[in-house]
C-alpha cells in the first residue's frame, strides 16, 4: 500500500487545531477529546474510504492523554507521522499509544517547568514592572515575551514531530529546554527582585535618612523570606491575603 501523505490543507488544519487541545479538558481523559479533535483532519485523509479503520484510529486517540498544551504540538506532529505509517500498513497501531504515553509525562514535566515555572513568571514580572510606566507597555511586554517563545515552540515542535520520532527527539535535544528553564528562572529572579525593589523603594518616607531606608529594606527582605517559607509549607496566597484582610478590618478600620 502506498503511504498517504498529509496535504498542506490538512497539515494547516491540524496545526491550528492544536490550540484547542484543552477545549474539553476533563478529569478522566484530560486532553483526550482535544487530541482526537486536533488529529482528525489527518485521520480523514489517511483513512479516506476506509470508515472502520478511521473509527479505530479515532478511538485510539480518545484514550487518556495529558501533557503541557504547548508541548503537545511535538507529540501531535509525531502522532500524525505514525498514523501515516499505520494507514500504509507499515506500522503497528499499538506503537502510537506507546509513543504518546512514553512522551506525554516527560514532555509535560519539561513544559510545566519551562512555561509555568520560568517563562510565565519572567514575562509577568516584566509586564508588571513596565505597567508602572504605561499600562499598554506592560501588556505588550507580557504578551510579546511569553508568546515570542510559546508560538515558536508550538510551531517548531510540530514541524519536528512531523519529521517523525527521530525528528522530534532531535529537536527536543537541540531546543535544550532544561538549560533555557534555568536561564529564564534567573531572568525571572532579576525581574522579581527589581519589582520588589521598586515597590519597597516607593514606600520610603520623603526626606528620611539612610537608617530608615536600611530598616525598610530589611523588613522587605524579611517579608519575602517569610512568604516564601509559608509557600513552601503549602500555605496558599489566598490564605495569606485573607489573613491580611482580617488584620486590616479588625485593627485598622475605625
Amino acid at each position, binding site marked *: 500500500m502506498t503511504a498517504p501523505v498529509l496535504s498542506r490543507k490538512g497539515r494547516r488544519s491540524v496545526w491550528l487545531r492544536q*490550540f*484547542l487541545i*484543552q477545549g*474539553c*479538558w*476533563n478529569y*478522566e*481523559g*484530560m486532553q483526550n*477529546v482535544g487530541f482526537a*479533535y486536533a488529529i482528525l483532519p489527518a485521520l480523514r485523509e489517511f483513512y479516506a474510504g476506509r470508515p472502520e479503520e478511521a*473509527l479505530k484510529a479515532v*478511538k485510539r486517540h480518545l484514550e487518556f492523554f495529558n501533557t503541557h498544551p*504547548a508541548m503537545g504540538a511535538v507529540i501531535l506532529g509525531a502522532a500524525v507521522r505514525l498514523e501515516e505509517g499505520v494507514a500504509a500498513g507499515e506500522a503497528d497501531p499499538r506503537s502510537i499509544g506507546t509513543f504518546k504515553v512514553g512522551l506525554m509525562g516527560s514532555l509535560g514535566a519539561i513544559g*510545566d517547568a519551562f512555561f509555568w*515555572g520560568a517563562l510565565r*513568571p519572567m*514575562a509577568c*514580572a516584566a*509586564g*508588571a514592572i513596565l*505597567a508602572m510606566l504605561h*499600562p499598554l507597555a*506592560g*501588556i505588550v511586554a*507580557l*504578551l510579546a515575551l511569553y*508568546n515570542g517563545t*510559546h508560538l515558536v515552540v508550538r510551531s517548531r515542535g510540530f514541524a519536528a514531530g512531523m519529521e517523525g520520532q527521530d525528528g522530534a527527539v532531535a529537536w527536543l535535544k537541540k531546543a535544550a529546554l532544561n538549560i533555557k528553564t*534555568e536561564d529564564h528562572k*534567573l531572568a525571572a*529572579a*532579576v*525581574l*522579581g*527582585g527589581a*519589582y*520588589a*525593589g*521598586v515597590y*519597597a*523603594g*516607593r514606600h*520610603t518616607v520623603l526626606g528620611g535618612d539612610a537608617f530608615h*531606608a536600611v530598616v525598610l*529594606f530589611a523588613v522587605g527582605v524579611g*517579608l*519575602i523570606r517569610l*512568604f*516564601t517559607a509559608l509557600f513552601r509549607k503549602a500555605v496558599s*496566597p*489566598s490564605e495569606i*491575603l*485573607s489573613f*491580611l484582610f482580617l*488584620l*486590616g478590618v479588625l485593627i*485598622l*478600620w*475605625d
Partner: protein
Amino acid sequence: MAPRFALAALLGSLCYLDRTGACQLMLHRPLVVASLMGAIFGNLAAGAQIGAVLELLYIARLPVGASIPPDDTGAAVFAGTAAAVASSSIGLDGGSFTALLLLSVPFAELGRIADRYVRKVNGRIAHLTAEAVDRGDFRAVEHGLLAGLTLFALTGAVLSLAFSGAGVAIAKHLLYRFGPASRLEFAALQPVLPLLGAASVYSCSRTERTSAVFFLTMAVVFGATVFFRWSG
C-alpha cells in the same frame, strides 16, 4: 451601564477561554484583564494599577496535572472593574487599592470552584463523545470539543458578568463606608502586597543562584529608587 456589562461578559468569556480551553496566549493574565475591565468601566490606568500587583500574587500556583490554581482572571475582573469605578480624577487612594486587592480573594476562590465544576461536566461530555464514536459517529469528537469550548466560554461570560457586577456594587456601596481615616490606615498594608507577589516569583524561580541574584537586584533597584525619590 448595560452595554458595559455586555462588553465585560464578552471580553471576559474570551479571556476565560484563553485560560484553559483555547490558545493559552496569556490574554487571561490579571494585568491584561484588569486593564480591559478598567477601560470598559472608564479608567484603564486604575485597572492596570491594580492588575500589575494582582499579576504576581498567584503565579507560584501552577496549573499542573489535575490541580487548579485560584482564578486570578476572576479576581482581576472584580478588582479591575471596582478600581475603575472607585477611582477619582487623581486615581485610586491607597486604602481603596489595598481593600480591593484583599477583597478579590473570594472571587479567585469562587472562580476556582466554577472551573472545577466545568471540568466535571466536561467529563460527561467526553463520555458521551466516546459512546457516539463507539456507535460509528466520529463527527461527535468535533461536537464534543465544541460543547466543551462553549461551556468554558459561557462560564467565563457568567463569571465576568457576576464579578464585574460585584465590583461595581462594592465600589459604589462598600468602599465609601471606609472613612478617609480608615482608608489611610488600611493603606498601611499596601506595601506588603507587591512583596507577596515578588515572593511568589522568587519561590517559583528557585535555582542555586536565584537567592543571590534576586536580593542583589532588589537592593540595587531599591537603592536607586530611594536615591531618585530623595534627590527629587
